[in-house]
């Protein structure tokens, strides 16, 4: 059964909707329950996600790994409220995303979900600081928050630079700062090192780790790189739209080991699927 589109109307709910209202204290920042998402290609229906369930606790850093086409990006999009879902539910901070209309969803996303894109997606005509301030431009104290974040992320001397004058790593840090400026409940990060060299990529991973450790940020990252996943607390492995395995990263001393573990999990899942078939 297809749920009401998040972009659809939610008459009657708009008035009492407040994206800044405090979350339920005991609710996890992210709760995905039996999420199903289908795409239609001509007459063919493709199930991109099938009964995916995931709970991310406060201060937890979760990496979702998977091969291309496994559904990890679709899962991230669904968690960010960027796409509608066909079954199941997604709760962010205890609030079910289903039923929020487009405006409510936008406001909710702005206040409670920090998004970091692979391609940074900075506005080329705004300075680094202005890009960071973008989500809080109309709110009081936004400038101070942005300024503090810029300092915190080591961009103090680049604040007046425009994106084309920043390196890839710096641009991604600006993008992370922009995602954090509203103090969101959860940070959703899409392949953050995909456009970066290994050094810059490692710096970004360290930054995300430190945000989790020092600021108790809840982070969900989508990646196919073991070195990035290693920064997380645990890894969820997605294959063909299904979470097939998961493990804490602490048991792997380095990225190579984690890559081996990831491969084993995939093979195990393939074996199970083969046996089942």
């Amino acid at each position, binding site marked *: 059964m297809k749920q009401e589109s998040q972009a659809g109307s939610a008459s009657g709910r708009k008035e009492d909707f407040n994206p800044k209202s405090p979350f339920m204290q005991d609710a996890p920042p992210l709760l995905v329950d039996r999420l199903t998402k289908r795409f239609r290609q001509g007459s063919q229906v493709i199930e991109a996600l099938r009964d995916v369930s995931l709970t991310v606790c406060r201060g937890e850093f979760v990496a979702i790994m998977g091969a291309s086409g496994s559904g990890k990006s679709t899962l991230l999009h669904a968690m960010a409220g960027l796409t509608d879902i066909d079954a199941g539910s997604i709760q962010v901070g205890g609030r079910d995303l289903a039923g929020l209309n487009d405006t409510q969803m936008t406001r909710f996303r702005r206040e409670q979900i920090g998004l970091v*894109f692979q391609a940074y997606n900075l506005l080329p005509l705004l300075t680094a600081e202005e890009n960071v301030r973008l*989500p809080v431009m109309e709110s009081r104290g936004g400038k101070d928050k942005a300024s503090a974040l810029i300092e915190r992320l080591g961009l103090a001397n680049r604040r007046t630079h425009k994106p084309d004058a920043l390196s890839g790593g710096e641009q991604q840090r600006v993008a992370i700062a922009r995602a954090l400026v509203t103090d969101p409940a959860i940070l959703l990060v899409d392949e953050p090192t995909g456009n970066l060299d290994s050094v810059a990529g490692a710096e970004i991973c360290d930054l995300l780790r430190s945000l989790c450790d020092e600021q108790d940020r809840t982070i969900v990252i989508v990646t196919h790189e073991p070195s990035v996943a290693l920064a997380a607390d645990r890894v969820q492995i997605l294959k063909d739209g299904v979470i097939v395995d998961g493990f804490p990263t602490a048991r792997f001393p380095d990225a190579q080991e984690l890559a081996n573990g990831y491969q084993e999990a995939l093979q195990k899942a393939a074996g199970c699927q083969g046996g089942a078939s």
Partner: protein
Amino acid sequence: MKTVLKLAIRFLQQHPFRLFLTVCATAAATCLVLWVVSGYEAILRSYDVFANRALGRYALSVDPISRKWDRQVLPEIVEALRNDPDVIAADRMWAERVVVQSEVVKLKAPPPGSGSKPGKGVKECLLLGTDALAPPFDLLRGRWIGQKKGPGKRTDPIEVAVSAEVAERYGVDVNNSLIVGRDESSLPLRVVGIVDNPPVPITGLMTGSMTLPSPSIAGIYVLMEDAAQILKRQPVITFVGLCLNEGVDVHAFRFAWGPKLSTFKEPAQFQEDHDLEEQLDEAASAENLKLQSYAATLMALLLAFLVIFNTLNMGVLERTRQFAMLRAIALTSGQVARIVFAEGFLIASAGFIGGLAFGQALLLLTGSLSGSVLRHGAHLGVLGISLAAVASFGAAFLAALVPAWRATRVRPLDAMAPPQASKIPPAKRYWYAALIGLGLIGLALVFTFVFPPTNETGAKCRLLYALITLAMGFFLLAPAMVRLVDRFVGPLLARAIGISPKLLAQQLSCHMGRTVASAIALGVGLAMYVSIQVWGYTMLETFVPGQWAPDMFIAFEPSGLTAKGAEEVAHLPGIDTDRCAPIVVEQPRLRKDLTDSATRASVIRQDNVVLVGIDPQKAIGGSGRKPLLDFTYVRGTRRGALASMQNERGCIVPEHFLQETGLQPGDRFELVPPENPQKPVLYTIAASVRFQGWHWMTKENNLRVRAHRAAALVIADYETVCSDFDLFKAKHVWLRYETPAIEADQIADKAQGYYAGILGETVNNGKPKNTSNTSHLGNENEHSSQGNPADDIQTVSTEAVRQTVRAHAKRWLWAVSILPLVAVAIGCLGVLSVIVGSVRARQWEMGILRALGFTRGTLVRLVIAEGLLVGIVAGLLSLGFGIMAGWCGAGLSHHISFFGGMQPALVVPMMALLIGLLVVLQFAALAAIGPAIRVGRTSPLHLLQQGRSAL
């Protein structure tokens, strides 16, 4: 809102050159409106002076038809007019010359054309007795006559108001005295007011005649009973000044009353003076200008709309990813839409302010250069500024609608997707759209020509429908046209300029939206230009004398020719003896208003005809040779017409006369002899013919002897016309040249010599004045009041008439075409903006081409070719739309235009259209040259780098 505005500003800053072009185009459009509207207002202010020139506060004047010395307007006519609820005042006027002396200064010589003639020691002045309660023109000083008198009381001395010119000439002012009459019969007059009569008239001809029924000729105004005392006889009504209620249509009133006035014992007519006609024409011109100003606003709005639309649309398409990101992290769809609207508003504001500044400068310049035309000066007015604001801000708002909607359709998810390469959209839908477009165009033609409207309102609706349908049709046709040009013209152009067709292939189709928009922006002006030219030339051809017309016309004034004299003229060297005939001319009223002129007057819906009496045998007879009047017969035959004219009071009429009146060959209609209205005469329609250009022939040949316009030129038997209208001598001759090589001047000289010989005195040779009705309206022995001898021989060649008509029309058409050509220039800015955007988007691709070994020259030619292709699309669409719109316009003018109704055939002025097309192609190429050179000068590495960052 702050965020929205800030982002809008930053987005606009992203492409400063594009912003500059868009603002320039908007400013130019604003300026266009200011220029036209302010010019219109200035000319309108100038018209006020002209409007008051002829009749002052009166809308019309009525004078007797008769030219006899004792003519007068009957009191019953005045009473009947006063009883009409549309009439505010019907003031009697009695004009007489009197001798006036001043007690103050010695008389100065009167200026020419003042209405007064100095004699040998006689100081004459025109006295106008009137019972008007208010002065016909503004009072400069003092008061109007009779305002301190009670009914029936006389003042002593007699109170008069004098014209400013008379006051100056006699050196008198308010409370000074004048003396009228001589010696013991003289009477003192006390000046109580100075009237601001119009200055020396522009035409200078009719106002010189004391018979001009207009208060403008008066030197001294006096009450009717005081005039009777001065002139020592009972008052006579020379003419009547009519004031009409506000809102009364002067044309309709005139045509409704015309037949009534001719039914009185002594028939009267509305004065058809040239000045009066000019006044009415100027009012019509003012109305036309007003329409032009609204049309200019509409066009400016459309142009600004297209250019701003292009800019905003390109911006939205280029920023899809940025909008998606903004949607994902911060902004609602409404806020994104507001960014686009804010961009439009900012562009409009900058364009409006720039347009105001430039417009003011242009108006100052125009004002200083225009001299007398805009003598009240052109300056920014409320109407101009308001319409300019409508054009700029309205355009921006409309232009932002679709891009804003597109921006709202950007999904936050698009921020995650990799950039998409531009794809060629499927062609099928364009062909479907083209089919619908062709259908719409067909419908416009069907509803114009197959099912024509039956009334004026219907015709106006039909015209609007046709224009909208054609616009929609060609808009739907545009994508298919782009595909066709891409497919067929692109390769040819590529080969012509020496580049590989594959490089140019589908450049336009890949960016269908902006190609169509830029082609329309460029084509709007051309479409309007083409439609004006097609409409104008189509309408014009019916006014150019056709092959029926004789080669030459000669008038012998004032005595005319005897039959023997006419025969002798036919034998003058250079004249085809068999094809030269004397004609008699009258302009009688139709007894019944067959053309319905009272309610729907137009150039051919009039209440009278020009009747020409000519020997039928000479006119249309002849054996084996072309006759003098070489008609194309629509209904009836030459032989039948000849017999009917000779035996049955038959006549030949224009085909449009039959269509307007519903008459058929064999039907009869009655004409009212002006001098003998009690005895109407019947004529039988023998045939109808194509009579192209009879209007101008009768105008230039001075055959409209009584009224300014006529419903038809009717050809009848010479003897019959002479008998019916008491005409004794032919004053005019129509002739054909003996050989085509004959010069008109040679014949004119021979005719002049012949006429001088029979008169025994020197005669002059000249061209008839368009405004001159001297033989009928003036004193026949008084050739001119200005001391110049009259033209005794007046010759006009038909070729000269044709040239005059064409030159006049072409001047007008080109004057009207300036506006569309300015629009083409403005549209060019839109194309430039699109090409800059297109080049910018393809920098990476061009960098690769350069890296692969393609030369700078190839890239330059590639970009210019793209501009030319846009120009070709614009040209084809504009030509199609313009020709169709012009054709429909000419067809519907039959019902709408005052000059319609002549069943014109479509004329496509190829040369004029070619000029327009070349202008557009030139502008398109010019628009492409800048970006082309820039690309050519950029190194391959830079192109690759810039292209990569653009991606």
